[in-house]
């Protein structure tokens, strides 16, 4: 993974000093609330319901065991003993004290970490594929490009006060619909790394996607941008957006609204007109620089191993629980004899994505023992050990299971994506964690979960859509109706190359009704699927929303009558 040199370290150290001064001035009253807000946000610091929330950057999800141990120390010392892996691969602490934050940043800087631009109206932490560098379906490793973008966007002077936040995601996998694990089509800029016929690297540039209040699937602005021009082209997109994006209404301020208002043709014309002036300028990337960055992402010291199939491993141990874990949580690796393992943070005992300090230290030990001391976070809010020898999977499984990190449910209904919601977040209209917990409790039968198969269930506590509910096969959105919490349910959403936004099935539900609604949706799917192989989302697309809707509301009516009869 990328290691800082003295330049990177100086920049992060200077930031700590700058933020310490800003915090001191705020506490002394010489910096007003309004003046401090954008500054603290650009350091990932929100003022939340109970306490500040600090969002620490995990650039494109890469983390070393040393960094994870430091996060554990910080969560123990300054917080309440746990952290939360966010849907943008970052780590959030829910209870730090404002006056401690400069010290927390100083501690993070000692392990090459920071909270720079994890919030605010600026270019946010770049996200990517949790299987980067090890996945058999990738064209090239996306991480060098992510790191180039991280450096370019860090303290970019022209784009620190954009109309609204700006999110970039990089995908380098190709093949099936589900190869896009980073949801490039629902980002302000999505980049698909491509190779042309001569083997030259370039990018398909997608612009104007996003979730939130007005969900829009992004459109292609450039089919193939040769890699040398990555920075100059992105600067032109950002410049057009910075100058002409709406600033009068924060709900219409994302780049997607500008692209939609101008139309992609006109937006492209303006970007290309800007680009004519800066193309081939000093920010054009050089072979030397790309090589320098690539050297940080060389393959680890993989042993030459004979490959063994996961099926053979399962047969050898003949243990149903281990077999299930292999099926759901272990993924093929490009190097024979290795596998990538997802450690589930969706154990029913914890909120989705939450991880205790003890678990962090334990995962750090696992990373050292099994995976070259590195790990990744995923936007599905799990942790990944990317380079595990297949012959050691059983041993790893036994250890992970003992620490509640081996729920064999990756990609199933239990593997819920969920924002912190109204329990923590001051933006939320409704709680989301209790909904996730209630659904997980309802569907705790593994046989049934396996019968249901692949299903993304995503929950957001408000329109801001941190839980990506629009692209969940089942999406749940918390809404506020005259002061009480209700939940709107949509179905048919999906991420991937054919990203699709789900359709709302009808009027919203009370919290207590949600597990029944999910049960009815699942029963409708089971009754209608054309075979066990047809996934929930495919059934929805084949038969439409209506059969699901009818049954949910018919059941709901029946439930009401029963309730009245029992009263």
């Amino acid at each position, binding site marked *: 993974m990328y290691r800082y*040199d003295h*330049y990177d370290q*100086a*920049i992060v150290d*200077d*930031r700590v*000093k*700058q933020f310490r001064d*800003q915090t001191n001035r705020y506490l002394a009253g*010489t*910096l007003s609330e309004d*003046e401090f807000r*954008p*500054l603290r946000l650009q350091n990932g610091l929100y003022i939340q319901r109970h306490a500040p929330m600090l969002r620490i950057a995990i650039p494109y999800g890469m983390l070393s065991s040393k960094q994870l141990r430091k996060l554990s120390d910080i969560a123990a010392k300054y917080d309440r003993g746990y952290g939360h892996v966010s849907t943008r691969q970052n780590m959030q602490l829910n209870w730090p004290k404002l006056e401690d934050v400069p010290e927390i940043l100083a501690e993070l800087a000692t392990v090459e970490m920071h909270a720079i631009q994890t919030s605010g*109206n600026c270019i946010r932490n770049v996200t990517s594929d949790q299987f980067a560098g090890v996945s058999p379906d990738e064209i090239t490793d996306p991480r060098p490009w992510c790191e180039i973008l991280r*450096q*370019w966007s*860090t*303290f*970019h*002077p*022209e*784009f*620190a*006060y*954009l109309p609204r936040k700006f999110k970039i995601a990089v995908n380098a996998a190709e093949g099936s619909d589900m190869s896009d694990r980073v949801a490039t089509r629902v980002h302000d800029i999505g980049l698909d790394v491509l190779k042309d016929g001569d083997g030259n690297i370039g990018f398909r540039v997608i612009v104007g996607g996003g979730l939130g209040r007005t969900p829009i699937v992004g459109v292609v602005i450039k089919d193939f941008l040769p890699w040398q021009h990555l*920075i100059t082209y992105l600067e032109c997109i950002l*410049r057009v957006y*910075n*100058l002409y994006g709406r*600033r009068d209404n924060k709900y219409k301020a994302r780049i997607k609204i500008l692209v939609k208002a101008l139309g992609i043709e006109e937006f492209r014309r303006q970007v290309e007109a800007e680009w004519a*002036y800066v193309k081939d*300028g*000093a*920010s054009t*990337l*050089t072979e*030397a*620089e790309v090589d*320098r960055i690539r050297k940080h992402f060389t393959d680890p010291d993989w042993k030459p191993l004979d490959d063994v199939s996961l099926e053979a491993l399962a047969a050898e141990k003949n243990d149903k629980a281990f077999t299930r874990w292999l099926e759901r949580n272990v993924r093929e690796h490009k190097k024979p004899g290795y596998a990538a393992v997802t450690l589930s943070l969706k154990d029913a005992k914890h909120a989705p994505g939450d991880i205790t300090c003890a678990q962090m230290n334990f995962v750090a030990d696992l990373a050292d023992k099994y995976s070259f001391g590195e790990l990744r976070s995923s936007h599905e809010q799990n942790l990944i050990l990317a380079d595990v020898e297949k012959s050691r999977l059983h041993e790893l499984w036994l250890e992970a299971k003992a620490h509640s990190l081996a729920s064999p449910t990756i990609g199933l209904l239990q593997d819920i994506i969920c924002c912190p919601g109204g329990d923590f977040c001051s933006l939320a209209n409704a709680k989301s964690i209790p909904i996730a917990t209630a659904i997980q409790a309802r569907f705790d039968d593994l046989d049934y979960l396996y019968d249901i198969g692949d299903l993304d269930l995503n929950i957001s506590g408000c329109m801001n859509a941190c839980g990506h509910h629009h692209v969940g096969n089942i999406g749940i959105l918390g809404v506020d109706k005259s002061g009480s919490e209700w939940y709107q349910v949509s179905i048919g959403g999906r991420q991937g190359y054919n990203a699709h936004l789900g359709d709302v099935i009808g009027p919203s539900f009370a919290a207590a009704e949600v597990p029944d609604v999910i049960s009815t949706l699942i029963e409708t799917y089971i009754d209608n699927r054309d075979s066990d192989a047809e996934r929930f989302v495919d059934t929805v697309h084949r038969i439409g929303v209506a059969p699901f809707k009818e049954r949910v509301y018919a059941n709901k009516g029946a439930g009401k009558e029963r309730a009245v009869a029992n009263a």
Partner: protein
Amino acid sequence: MPKIIKHSSIVDDNWTLVRLADGESAETVQLPAGDLIVPLKVWQARRAELLARPQRGVWLAPDEVAQDIAADLDKLQVVAVDFPQFADGRGYSTAALLRGRFGWRGELRAIGDVLKDQLFYLQRVGFDAYAVRADKDIEDAVKALNDFSETYQAAVDEPLPLFRRRRA
């Protein structure tokens, strides 16, 4: 006399900033004596009159772009960009365009809600003068021009990105 930061030093400001009050129009506003920085609209309406003065300055509002003044740059000594609210960042792109595309070499001044915590970025996109908001401590603010010793990306103050300057 009010103070501004110019080229990293605190100096007397010899220019008078003209803003149109409610009810005043560009055509009829009374222009005081001395060196003036006037709104773009006043410049456009009173060009001949202003050209008769020895020195001239014009300021741009956030929705006025660099192209609006580009053709007149050779007649000006000061161009200012107004930040009614510091979080409205359009002026950063305007500055970068004035310096880069339109080759402005004279004073480029940030006016309005100009605060310590934005000075480093303002400097990077080409500003060289800062009218720090009057209620703020200008002596403290000037220190922010040195907040960072290194920067990654190319900008007006450093036309080469770090990757073209880096020594191992």
